[in-house]
């Protein structure tokens, strides 16, 4: 690798920032390219892409990542041709640009160490260069994008200006790692540069210190820029040099090049700013927080401080006399309710800090759809709505892969081939709709397609083959649809490398249930299917139903409770070897005795169930009945991880501290569905 890079550990932090910026820039480029591919011929889009590449190049050059800078330079030059409409946007061109983005991503990822596929990168670079060769050097644009109004205004090349810059670096210029050549290079991007060095300050050789700077320059710059833009290039070294910029009137001839250079430099700074405002990258330990959110936190803390002094005051007053005590009691109550409100608001504000828009995850998918649809020879459009819906960062990170699976699945199995679609009287292009919205206390994410829908017959046949359903069963349509979430189930006739290995849907379900969510499928033959994911807003708090078993209080997540019934002994059946069954509206629900499951006192005989409550919970699409002694309140509980000081305990989601200060365990409903199958059967019997 030719890159010198930033290796010093002190620079690590800067590298991380640069890396984030690069990734943001690459996201912009990728989104822009995909828009171009989708038929967007707006010049702004090309400009966005160009700006993205330009800032990456600039940053890479500054930090010494020559490999990235060189690569981006080729990209940028080619993009410039697209901007100048010398090169038409075509699918193969977008493809090679997307490949370049992949290469750049790999390079950016390995900035901190490691290696990337240099061979492939070189190949892509050569291909980019070969595209450059295809561009004729004449001024007349080759088959270009439709010239819009934007382009026409850009065609009117403004007069060029000639600047004289007197650049006198201080002696200490080099000590801070500044390099005059970087500035010259940056200026060269603005226009034509000619340098005249001045050696008059050079000391005699004996007094010469190699670490000091003795040369100054007279720079002539021919470019259509204003003074501020030139000074901007000297921003970095402002304190380390003297710069004088004067304009000389002189007409210019080379119209064409300047126009491109001009808008480029004007855009670059604002583009950079825009990108840095974008959301934080996935999987990063840090989080970018909107300043408004922090301000509201500060306000609330301020309110709390005032509240506290109010309480102090009232306490002091109340101790003065009997009467004061009586009157202050009312005030005290008011203050306390105020404090309560502030605390609740503070809690909500803190939670909001962890919230990120789902677009941070959704942004990955247009590329996926692009890649897959070309691989599968299908025409697919991805529609995204509600990307500003906010979700807890942890939830967001964990939802990425399940969504990827679902979209992949819709593309591979849902959307038909163009021929099939035409035959079915549908539009040749299929649509996958990815949407997010708030619904009640949860967030809904839906992946719907207008494809063929789930093939119930095929699923049922497969299920019978695999012994998941017995031949004589007549499951309902919905029950058949739910089978796709079963482990080891795949209906793809041909196992493709896109999907169809029979892992996937069950993993999707498990991942989603792990974060306290659930997934449902609705499908209509010939019209398409919708996968609906319901997610909790946050992982830190949940709505819980407090229950009592033995002397202990446990919490069951409210989201997983279907209903609660009083135990009727007539409906209980004991099936030897597999446990207890409760019959409810024609359904046989396996019963789990909380006492036995959690080793609580007095694991009594069956007949003690009479009069107790049976809490029906749903997990992994199965209903399970939990026998509990009594139902208590419903509360929002703050989840405390057991792993902080202990280890993960099977069957326990975490602990919470109740109003009276005692600790209560939160039941992990997802682990309850296993007991009927294997190990926990023994538990029921021992």
């Amino acid at each position, binding site marked *: 690798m030719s890159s010198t890079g930033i290796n010093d550990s002190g620079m690590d932090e800067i590298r991380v920032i640069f890396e984030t910026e690069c990734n943001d820039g690459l996201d912009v480029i990728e989104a822009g390219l995909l828009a171009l591919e989708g038929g967007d011929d707006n010049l702004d889009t090309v400009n966005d892409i160009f700006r993205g590449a330009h800032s990456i190049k600039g940053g890479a050059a500054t930090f010494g990542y020559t490999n990235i800078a060189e690569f981006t330079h080729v990209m940028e030059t080619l993009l410039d041709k697209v901007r100048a409409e010398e090169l038409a946007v075509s699918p193969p061109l977008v493809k090679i640009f997307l490949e370049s983005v992949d290469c750049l991503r790999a390079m950016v990822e390995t900035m901190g160490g490691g290696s990337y596929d240099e061979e492939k990168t070189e190949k892509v670079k050569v291909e980019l260069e070969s595209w450059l060769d295809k561009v004729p050097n004449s001024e007349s644009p080759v088959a270009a994008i439709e010239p819009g109004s934007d382009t026409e205004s850009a065609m009117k090349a403004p007069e060029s200006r000639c600047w004289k810059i007197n650049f006198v670096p201080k002696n200490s210029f080099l000590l801070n790692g500044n390099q005059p050549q970087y500035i010259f290079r940056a200026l060269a991007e603005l226009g034509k540069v000619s340098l005249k060095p001045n050696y008059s300050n050079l000391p005699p050789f004996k007094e010469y210190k190699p670490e000091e700077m003795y040369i100054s320059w007279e720079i002539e710059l021919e470019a259509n820029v204003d003074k501020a833009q030139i000074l901007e290039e000297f921003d970095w070294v402002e304190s380390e040099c003297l710069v004088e910029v004067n304009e000389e009137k002189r007409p210019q001839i080379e119209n064409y090049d300047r126009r491109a250079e001009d808008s480029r430099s004007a855009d670059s700074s604002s583009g950079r700013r825009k990108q840095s405002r974008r959301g934080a990258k996935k999987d990063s330990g840090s989080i970018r927080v909107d300043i408004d959110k922090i301000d509201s936190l500060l306000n609330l803390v301020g309110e709390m401080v005032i509240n506290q002094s109010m309480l102090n005051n009232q306490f002091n007053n109340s101790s003065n006399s009997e009467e004061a005590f009586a009157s202050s009691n009312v005030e005290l109550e008011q203050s306390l309710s105020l404090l309560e409100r502030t605390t609740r608001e503070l809690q909500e504000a803190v939670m909001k800090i962890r919230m990120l828009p789902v677009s941070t995850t959704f942004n990955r998918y247009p590329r996926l759809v692009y890649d897959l649809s070309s691989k599968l020879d299908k025409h697919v459009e991805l529609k995204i709505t509600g990307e500003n819906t906010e979700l807890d960062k942890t939830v967001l990170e964990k939802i990425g892969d399940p969504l990827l699976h679902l979209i992949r699945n819709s593309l591979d199995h849902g959307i038909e081939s163009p021929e099939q679609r035409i035959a079915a009287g549908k539009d040749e292009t299929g649509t996958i709709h990815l949407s997010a919205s708030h619904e009640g206390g949860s967030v809904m994410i839906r992946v719907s397609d207008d494809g063929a829908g789930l093939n119930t017959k095929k699923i049922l046949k497969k299920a019978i083959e695999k012994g998941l359903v017995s031949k004589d069963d007549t499951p309902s349509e919905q029950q058949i649809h739910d089978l796709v979430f079963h482990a080891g189930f795949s209906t793809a006739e041909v196992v493709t490398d896109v999907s169809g290995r029979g892992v996937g849907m069950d993993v999707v379900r498990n991942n989603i249930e792990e974060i306290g969510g659930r997934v449902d499928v609705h499908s209509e033959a010939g019209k398409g299917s919708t996968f609906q994911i319901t997610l909790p807003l946050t992982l830190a708090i949940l709505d819980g139903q407090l229950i009592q078993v033995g002397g202990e209080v446990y919490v069951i997540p409210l989201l997983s409770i279907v209903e609660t019934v009083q135990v009727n002994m007539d409906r209980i059946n004991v099936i030897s070897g597999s446990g207890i069954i409760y019959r409810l509206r024609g359904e046989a629900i396996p019963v789990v005795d909380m006492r036995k499951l959690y080793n609580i006192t007095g694991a009594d005989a069956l007949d003690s169930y009479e009069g107790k409550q049976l809490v029906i919970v749903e997990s992994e699409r199965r209903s399970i009945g939990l026998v509990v002694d009594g139902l208590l309140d419903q509360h929002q509980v703050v989840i405390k991880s057991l792993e902080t000081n202990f280890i993960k305990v099977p069957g326990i989601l975490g602990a919470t501290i109740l109003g009276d200060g005692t600790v209560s365990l939160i039941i992990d409903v997802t682990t309850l569905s296993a007991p009927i199958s294997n190990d926990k059967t023994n*538990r029921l019997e021992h």
Partner: protein
Amino acid sequence: MSDNEKTQEELNQYLTFVLDNEEYGVPILSVRGIQGWEKTTPLPNSPDYVMGIINLRGEVVPIVDLRKRFDLEVIPYGAHTVVIVVRIEQENKQRTVGLVVDAVADVHDINDEDMRKTPEFGEKMRNEFVRGLGLIDEKMVIILEIDELVDWQKVPGGDQVLSTKETTEDETENELVATEAA
């Protein structure tokens, strides 16, 4: 006294406690507090020496019965029974754990020269828990290696633990009469 000397002195200080008529010590810098025994919330599917969890100023802290941990005879908890809350470090992670002991004894200075290597203890106690023996006048204190004391990483999976846990079904009784260890 300069700060440096102070820390050095604190480094050699140990809080000692009694367990089955034997005196044990833990580095005083790792002690976060001492409190009386209170009812814990029992944890299912955990080793039998874990009595449960408590709320310690908003933190959920597991409580370990040291008698059970050392396979000593289990006695009922009484008026002197205390919980010593210590900070342990495992895999660069700080964890807080409460240790149930018979009674707190004293604070002792034990210099390095008064520390002895651990002899073989045989069956009574496993050596990995012991850092060394501290000599105080004629007395001997067993200095514990608290980071090893509760190595949660070595705790086997819950399901296996469960099968050995049948005898602890009666959790409420633990408050007064700790049951026999499995």
